């Protein structure tokens, strides 16, 4: 029986950058092994970086992922500044914190809305995305653009926050805080959401550490690790905020982690606005950095992001390596699927909230008979229904 497993290209919600495809190895009913196949949205950015000058690299780094564009530019600029061995002025560091946290609020609210859309709760999606516009207004106020902030520059920051802006930003933050608390309330005790997210896609704490998971996926399994604490870049250590973790290890925990982190981010921005030092916002630097190499780590909304930069003194980078947080989470995602029955795959895949447009194919290989077949999600769902009905008889 050969038929293709394919979730069609359709209205998709962007949660990760790389499209991926799941290959399952089965022993009868139980999933023994899962291997992913990426590459559907691969554009060859790392090679593209070598064709661009250092400054042009910022604009390409920004468009690796549309949602968390700021962490990418922050990480790239931090790495290059390490090459120059220069310290960015204090005010620029605080501005970078504010922009990164605004981006985190934007990304987390987006994901919470998409979680509602994912389980068919359109009203929740509409309300959350209506309030998310408030963050984009603040971002537009500071940088002039709703989504791609292009705030960072090698040696500092491009835009500044003037006193009249602060008042608007604070009012926006108050409104956002009140709304995020309300959405967390809904998340906590709305039965249909809980029915679709509780103890689904469980990732134990030890697996999360072994498989190097990052971000909310890791912190949902009760592991205290956040790049802002592990490596306090751009004076995060001067800001007091706490690390959010939940012990339930399932999708419900990850949703709660993201909701709490949004509230934390709002506090961070307020504290930055209070303690904002005066002074210049950028440092003038030569066009090409001295030869050498540098590594920078930043906490993107989806997890720890790493940029490695190598320069040989020329005006184009010799090598730029980026590791997006989603790539780190894929082995952990495979772990979540192991040991479950075929019938559970639709629930877990939906709970991981993959980028539907890229989750294309699911290949099954029965290791006993060596027979291999590929199923469509619909056939998979039909099989799971039949499977559960037999179990219930």
């Amino acid at each position: 029986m050969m038929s293709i497993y394919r979730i069609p290209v359709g209205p998709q919600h962007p949660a990760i950058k790389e499209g991926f495809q799941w290959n399952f190895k089965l022993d009868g009913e139980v999933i023994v092994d899962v291997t992913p196949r990426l590459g559907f949205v691969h554009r060859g950015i790392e090679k593209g970086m070598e064709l661009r000058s250092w400054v042009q690299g910022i604009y390409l780094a920004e468009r690796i992922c549309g949602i968390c564009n700021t962490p990418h530019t922050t990480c790239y600029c931090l790495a290059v500044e390490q090459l120059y061995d220069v310290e960015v002025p204090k005010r620029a560091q605080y501005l970078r914190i504010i922009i990164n946290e605004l981006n985190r609020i934007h990304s987390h609210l987006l994901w919470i809305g998409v979680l509602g859309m994912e389980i068919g709760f359109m009203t929740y999606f509409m309300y959350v995305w209506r309030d998310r516009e408030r963050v984009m207004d603040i971002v537009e106020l500071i940088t002039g653009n709703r989504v791609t902030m292009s705030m960072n520059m090698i040696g500092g920051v491009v835009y500044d926050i003037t006193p009249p802006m602060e008042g608007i930003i604070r009012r926006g933050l108050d409104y956002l805080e009140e709304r995020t608390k309300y959405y967390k309330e809904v998340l906590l005790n709305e039965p249909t959401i809980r029915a679709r997210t509780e103890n689904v896609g469980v990732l134990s704490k030890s697996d999360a550490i072994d498989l190097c998971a990052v971000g909310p996926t890791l912190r949902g399994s009760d592991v205290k690790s956040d790049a802002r604490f592990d490596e306090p870049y751009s004076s995060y250590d001067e800001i007091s905020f706490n690390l959010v973790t939940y012990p339930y290890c399932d999708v419900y925990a990850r949703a709660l982690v993201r909701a709490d982190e949004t509230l934390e981010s709002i506090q961070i921005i307020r504290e930055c606005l209070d303690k904002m030092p005066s002074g210049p916002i950028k440092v003038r630097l030569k066009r090409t950095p001295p030869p050498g190499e540098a590594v920078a780590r930043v906490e993107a909304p989806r997890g720890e992001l790493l940029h490695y930069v190598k320069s040989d003194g020329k005006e184009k980078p010799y090598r730029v390596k980026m590791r997006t947080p989603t790539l780190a989470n894929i082995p952990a995602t495979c772990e979540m699927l192991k040991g479950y029955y075929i019938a559970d795959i639709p629930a877990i895949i939906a709970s991981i909230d993959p980028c539907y447009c890229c989750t294309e194919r699911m290949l099954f290989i029965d290791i006993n008979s060596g027979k291999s077949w590929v199923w469509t999600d619909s056939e998979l769902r039909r099989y799971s229904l039949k499977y559960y009905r037999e179990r219930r008889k």
Partner: protein
Amino acid sequence: MSKSTSKEEFIAHELKSNFGDVISELKVTGPRRVYVTVPPESLRDILLFLKNMFNARHIVTITGIDMMKSFELIYHIAVPGEHIRSILVNVKTHIPRDNPTMPSVVDILPGATLYEREVHDLLGIVFEGHPNLERLILPDDWPEDEFPLRKDWKPKEV
């Protein structure tokens, strides 16, 4: 900027004492940064040492660079400091360009499966012992022997 705290010094010192003869270069370039260069054969021992001695279980990624005369692989390992993933130890190795093979580290650090497949895809380095070294990133119709991240590879009109 370069006030290096004791933890990095301690790690560097431990590495020096255990693998002194093998290490060709070791430096602490700043807070939370340790660079060490080793030959390919002893890479696995270093990773095992870091894992057992310092409980370093998080590999951030593997960077592959085409240095014209040889390939350079950098294993970025996060070693616990004040937090469980604070200090970044970058373990570097050089492998010859003609038959680029490297022992896989998946059994020591299971998180490295995808990074090795990515380097294999883009640079053509074969990792012996890797469970399934299939294509990860490049499209299906991509010719077998072309590796985009090599310096001598020019993008043809697609």
